[in-house]
């Protein structure tokens, strides 16, 4: 926080803090640089932290300052983010960025119709959750800048999320960021678009203009940073108005890959509460599914908020699947496997899909334009759906890569 214009801080301090640090920079008129570093891992990383602070000081041309760093095992990308946030709170006009190295393994892109069964929400200002998120194998990881970040920490979280996109291995999971609403969200884009984000989530979306504004800014940033690949958009419908406009929103741009629903805010908006059987949201969920399908994009269901109730989660996914949803938000890594299993195809579905895919491949080999199974003609969308079922079967270890030789 800023005090008297000559002192600012960022990060977190205290005994219960893990994998984070607190940095305070105090500008002086003379006396050179004085650093005071207290680290829980001092004997092992004290020297490297000191070097890093010196490097940051020289990057931002900091002279005559007192710097206090209280470290609880923060990794270098976190220290860099906290330092930069403190410095920019002291010097709001500074435009220079200190960018940690972009990991080679983070440079992948994704497809519009990629599987999005699970997207794991991570609070954007909590570095301790970032490192191992990908190990739990969600289809996507959402770094959240919106609801989970306090209004006073938005600036600091942006820098941390930017560094995370560069320095943390996402282990192949789709790289997503949920931006803020309104102008704040447009500002967020500057911190994420240049760093290979795959999908941007727009919260509380109720008007096409919200999508258009976001896309315009993304386009501008892509030109500026010479980015070629697609950045997909996933609007989240969280209000009565959003539900009514769902189709318009979903069909407003070819960059939209899916439409999600968030029920906490929606139920509040219509003046009711969430109940276990969910009658109050049945209309909204069906609207979102219908709008998404009409626009040719994915329909993604809300999160299940009781992280201890795995049976309830399983039932809610099976219900979502029956309504037409293809994915579910996750708020805890333990939910991921349960959701994947619940979205997994049945043996019957797989057997049917195998026959269709084999018939399709056979027709292709023979150069036939039409695919037939027995006496029935099969449409292209049916083939595509069968291929997806096979992919899900593979991902859930129901079938192996050799399924073609194992058919009965």
């Amino acid at each position, binding site marked *: 926080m800023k005090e008297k214009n000559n002192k600012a801080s960022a990060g977190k301090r205290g005994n219960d803090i*893990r*994998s984070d640090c607190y940095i305070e920079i105090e500008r002086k008129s003379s006396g050179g640089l004085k650093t005071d570093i207290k680290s*829980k*891992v001092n*004997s*092992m*990383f*004290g*020297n*490297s932290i000191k070097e890093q602070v010196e490097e940051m000081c020289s990057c931002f041309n900091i002279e005559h300052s007192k710097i206090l760093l209280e470290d*609880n*095992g*923060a*990794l*270098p990308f976190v220290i860099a983010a906290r330092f930069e946030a403190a410095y920019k709170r002291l010097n709001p006009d500074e435009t220079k960025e200190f960018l940690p190295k972009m990991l080679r393994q983070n440079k992948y892109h994704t497809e519009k119709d990629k599987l999005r069964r699970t997207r794991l929400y991570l609070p954007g200002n909590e570095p301790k959750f970032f*490192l*191992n998120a990908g*190990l*739990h194998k969600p289809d996507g990881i959402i770094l959240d800048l919106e609801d989970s970040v306090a209004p006073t920490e938005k600036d600091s979280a942006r820098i941390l999320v930017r560094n995370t996109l560069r320095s943390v*291995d996402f282990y192949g999971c789709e790289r997503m960021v949920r931006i803020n609403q309104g102008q704040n969200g447009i500002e967020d884009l500057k911190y994420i678009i240049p760093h290979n984000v795959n999908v941007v989530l727009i919260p509380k979306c109720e008007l096409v203009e919200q999508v258009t504004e976001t896309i315009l800014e993304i386009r501008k940033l892509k030109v500026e940073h010479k980015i070629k690949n697609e950045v997909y958009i996933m609007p989240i419908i969280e209000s009565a108005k959003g539900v009514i406009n769902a189709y318009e929103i979903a069909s407003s741009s070819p960059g939209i890959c899916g439409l999600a629903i968030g029920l906490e805010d929606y139920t509040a908006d219509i003046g009711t509460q969430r109940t276990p059987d969910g009658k109050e949201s049945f209309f909204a969920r069906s609207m979102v599914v219908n709008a998404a399908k009409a626009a040719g994009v994915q329909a993604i269901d809300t999160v299940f908020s009781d992280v201890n109730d795995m049976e309830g989660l399983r039932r809610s996914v099976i219900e979502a699947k029956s309504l037409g949803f293809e994915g579910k938000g996750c708020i*805890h*890594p*333990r939910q991921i496997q349960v959701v994947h299993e619940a979205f997994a195809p049945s043996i019957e579905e797989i057997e049917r899909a195998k026959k269709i895919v084999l018939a399709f491949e056979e027709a292709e080999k023979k150069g036939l334009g039409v695919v037939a199974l027995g006496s029935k003609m099969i449409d292209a969308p049916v083939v595509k759906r069968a291929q997806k079922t096979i992919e899900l079967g593979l991902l859930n*270890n129901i079938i192996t890569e050799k399924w073609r030789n194992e058919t009965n």
Partner: protein
Amino acid sequence: MKLIKNAAGRFVPIEINGQKQIPFQGVNKYKPTGRKTGAPIKSCVDFPTDGNKVVRNLRDALKKAGLKDGMTISTHHHLRNGDALTNYLFDTIKQMGIKNIRWFPSASFPVHKHLIKYLENGTIHHIEGSMNGPLGKFTSLGKMKGIGVLRSHGGRYQAIQDGEVKIDIAVIAAPTADEFGNSNGVIGPSASGLIGFALADSEYADNVIVVTDNLVPFPCIPWQIQGNNVDYVVKIDSLGDSSKIVSGTTEVTKSPDRLLIAEYVAQFIEEAGIMKNGFSLQAGAGGTNLAFVLYLKERMKANNIKARFMRGGSTKYLVQMLEEGLTDYILDGQTFDLEGVRSMRENPNHVNTSPFTSYNFHGKGNFASIVDVAVLGATEVDINFNANVVTHSDGYLLHGIGGWQNCLYSKCTILAIPSFRDRIPVIVDEVTTLCGPGELIDVIITERGIAINPLRKDLLKALKKSSLPIKSLNKIKNEVDSICGLPDKPKLNKGKVVAVVKWVDGTVLDSVCQVVE
């Protein structure tokens, strides 16, 4: 101090606290010969014929036992962090003006930081046992008068049996005892489950004092410690804080990363073909250790598999397995929660064991090597599968060895550990302190991958088609290093040995050096 290089390539002293030492010679290479030592001959006619050995207080008992400067006094850790007796014992010794005691506990806990003042003022000369928490820090800074000796539970039995440690006075905390000295740990306000750690002391010490806060009329049933080995019985108001003796609740970890490790462990045990009817396992009380048992239970149920026995540290989760018929027996070394205590009291198939049955190097075999799979922890492992459990990467002593070294003899030893903690890598080039030679460690399971010891070609083959992330230890290490950066080595005064780590056979495996602050 003269140091020589042992068979593990570690520099160790040849003399400690005036006693000659044998450097580690390799796993199973050193087998001492000769005869076991024994307690002095005593005669029943010198004890009260009515069987009443109760004396007024602990001070009188110590006086009658002939307490003198420089003696060795043993205590046991089944009261864990609730232990009030050991602190009271040394308060009494200090009041008696006695100095230079060799304290020989089976383990120490943070509650024993009370004893630091006695280490400072010369009441206690040094500790042979474990130096946990505050005592570990004190020792690491080179403040202890003598050199600490760390032993495994089995190593403690070995040292007593082959005469390396002669106990002058054993002070046994007994949750229930009769006036003859028969004692157990399953009954009473300070019930701890079992008191097997005191067995060797009761048989080999020159003098044995039983201290209880629950004195019952003869006979005390069951007698886990036999009164026939006991010299004096003392009644005090309370042995300690029962809520810290057994934690009451032992809960499974909530950390998603630890749970992922636990799931990998369970899957590994099944896919390696270890989980089959009649198998056996060793579990512990760490969060990951509890969790793997739950995941394994699901797999056992799904495959209709029943174990023959499970070794504890028992908890309510093992008790559930016993009561649901998923194992025939629990062979228990210590009881971690109230459900474990209850089960041991009520269920004849929940069996009390001791370091003699489980771990002793001088036994004619022991249980540890019969176990099919042991899942353990570690503070560090190195790329040669060597592991450390006593110091952290900053060089400070923090933990005891417990039964860890002994359990390495199981048919498949798995270390279930995170690949780093905060920023501190757990997989290193060379462990700070060597506690377990890599040749005995078969599998390392982390959240970032599973490494199988190249010596275990059978396991490598069995897991060849597994969906588990099997990698080389080097690969996991490189990944962690790229996240954390390479740490500096701890600043140690290599010339000043503050403690040594013994191997299960009594040889010196490694030295712990003074940390320079």
